[in-house]
């Protein structure tokens, strides 16, 4: 069933002002680009609060928002596992443990780190899988947004695909990563400006938190809808999940894989101005991340209570659009529509800027056309952006066959990120691991995830729900990667220690200067303190909703 919003001139005015601002940022950023470092890593000059907000925003795509609200309506409050155990610990780990290796080695990308630690083959393998994944995810994003815009505003599908693609294309080709990041920061606030009034009005309508809890208990979800850890030992909960799946599948393999090795995220931290700011990037991001379920999962649950046909005649993904239609007056409605458009662009811009960097740096420059001047690679980056967006448009329609887009993305992440994380973590802490162990481990892990997902899809194995399938697929990929890496290490030669300095734990690079800035020693800039603070806060939030 369709949800059509009653937008008027005022709403369109607000949307238009936003687009004008976004394009303005692209033109302003263009003036500052003088080198490839400017284009791909924003000149490594951004403060931590900017990169931190961009880090959250890069993950706050329209699919994420609509999908998490859909999960909120379908599974209830236990959807917060995606945030509090499925994101925060990994983000803190990235900042405290892994970021010094990434940032201080001065690599431009995750695949480049793999080349330094292992070899060119590992770099190329990861670069190609990453590039394909980014294009697919950009396509999913684009298709989802086009569907939403067609339903909500009545724009024909091709029109919204083309308009959105052209806008993202324009500001990234002009301003590179700087304009992507600055737009992400802006988008972060606009998204909140749209979602907060929606949530507040929704809560008022259902009689506050108390009224909501009461009504969710009477809904089809029942008591399970208002608990996070209840019934996880037996699988008797709305997600039919087991705590082992939640803790090790979601909390460890999926989330550490995604947050610590996904270059579209890590790139935001690499553009920070020094090591401390890079380490703070994911940690600063963890704080808003803890509270984002308040404007995604919570409205999803409100929608469940207010619209009794949700999940029956009405798709769960319509939770937020339904609330927008019924609760927001013209004006704030325009802000919310802008926020949805903005959140879509945040996701797509992250995919495309990650893609153009990896394509240019790790495929083109590293393996095809070497030793050209810097301007040449900036040009290649701009062309890669155009081609990437065009392919995203082309692949947008792959997404059409899937009912719940979130699961489709989860499946993709488990293909590419879980084995990558295994390779990373062994490579960082086991200096004997050999270059070819990196390559074969990663290849075997990726294939294992693929095969398990295809077997599940073809019906040969039964994991219960799609969600459990991605947990198990990721876990299997991780295990296969570990086993193959260890076995290959035992039969191949390792890298000389001199080449591993600064890339593995326990072998620091003594030639590197300390890049700390005045004020980095203050407590509010301590990655350890703020990181532990985020973990405690996430645990306290679980204490509030057991």
């Amino acid at each position, binding site marked *: 069933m369709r949800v059509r919003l009653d937008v008027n001139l*005022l709403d369109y*005015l*607000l949307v238009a*002002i*936003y687009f004008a*601002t976004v394009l*303005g*940022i692209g033109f*302003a950023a263009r003036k*500052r680009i003088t080198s490839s470092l400017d284009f791909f890593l924003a000149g490594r*000059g*951004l*403060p931590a609060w*900017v990169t931190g907000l961009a880090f959250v925003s890069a993950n706050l795509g329209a699919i994420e928002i609509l999908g998490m609200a859909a999960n909120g309506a379908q599974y209830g409050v236990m959807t917060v596992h995606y945030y509090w155990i499925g994101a925060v610990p990994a983000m803190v780990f990235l900042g405290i443990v892994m970021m010094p290796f990434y940032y201080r080695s001065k690599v431009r990308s995750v695949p480049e780190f793999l080349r330094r630690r292992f070899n060119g083959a590992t770099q190329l393998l990861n670069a190609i899988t990453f590039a394909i994944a980014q294009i697919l995810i950009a396509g999913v994003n684009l298709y989802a947004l086009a569907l939403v815009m067609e339903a909500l505003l009545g724009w024909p599908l091709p029109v919204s695909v083309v308009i959105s693609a052209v806008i993202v294309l324009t500001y990234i080709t002009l301003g590179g990563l*700087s304009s992507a990041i*600055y737009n992400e*920061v*802006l988008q972060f*606030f*606009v998204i909140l*400006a749209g979602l907060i*009034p929606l949530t507040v*009005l929704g809560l008022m309508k259902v009689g506050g938190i108390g009224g909501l809890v009461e009504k969710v208990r009477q809904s089809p979800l029942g008591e399970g809808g208002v608990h996070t850890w209840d019934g996880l030992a037996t699988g008797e909960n709305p997600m039919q999940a087991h705590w082992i799946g939640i803790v090790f599948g979601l909390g460890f393999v999926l989330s550490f894989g995604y947050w610590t090795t996904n270059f579209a995220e890590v790139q935001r931290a690499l553009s920070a101005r020094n090591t401390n700011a890079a380490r703070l990037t994911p940690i600063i991001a963890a704080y808003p991340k803890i509270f984002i379920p308040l404007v995604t999962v919570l409205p999803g649950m409100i929608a469940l209570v207010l619209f009794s046909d949700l999940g029956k005649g009405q798709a769960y993904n319509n939770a937020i659009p339904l609330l927008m239609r019924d609760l*927001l*007056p*013209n*004006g*704030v409605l325009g*802000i919310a529509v802008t926020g949805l458009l903005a959140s879509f662009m945040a996701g797509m811009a992250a995919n495309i800027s990650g893609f153009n960097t990896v394509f240019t740096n790790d495929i083109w420059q590293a393996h095809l056309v070497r030793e050209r001047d810097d301007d040449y690679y900036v040009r290649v980056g701009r062309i890669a952006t155009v081609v990437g967006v065009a392919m995203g448009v082309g692949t947008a329609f792959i997404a059409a066959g899937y009912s719940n887009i979130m699961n489709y993305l989860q499946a993709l992440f488990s293909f590419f990120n879980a084995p990558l994380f295994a390779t990373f973590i062994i490579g960082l802490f086991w200096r004997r691991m050999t270059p070819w162990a990196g390559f074969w481990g990663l290849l075997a892990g990726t294939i294992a995830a693929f095969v398990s997902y295809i077997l599940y899809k073809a019906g040969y194995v039964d994991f219960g729900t799609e969600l459990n399938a991605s947990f198990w697929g990721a876990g299997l990929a991780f295990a296969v990667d570990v086993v193959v890496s260890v076995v290959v290490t035992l039969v191949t030669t390792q890298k000389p220690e001199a080449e591993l300095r600064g890339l593995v734990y326990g072998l620091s690079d003594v030639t590197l200067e300390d890049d700390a800035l005045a004020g980095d020693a203050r407590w509010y800039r301590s990655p350890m303190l703020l990181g532990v603070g985020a973990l405690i806060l996430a645990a306290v939030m679980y204490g509030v909703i057991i």
Partner: protein
Amino acid sequence: MMSDIRMVIGGLFLIYGVILIIAGVLGSAVNLWTGLVMAVFGGTFVVWARVRRI
């Protein structure tokens, strides 16, 4: 450059805030309240950018 993005965020929210306040006075209270909050938020960013320049 850092001050630029604060001015952009602040400026956009001030404009949005003013538009919503006008729409709120003419019509819905939801617009008025949201507009007020957005204008204050935008103003804070503009002041921050002015006071602590980089």
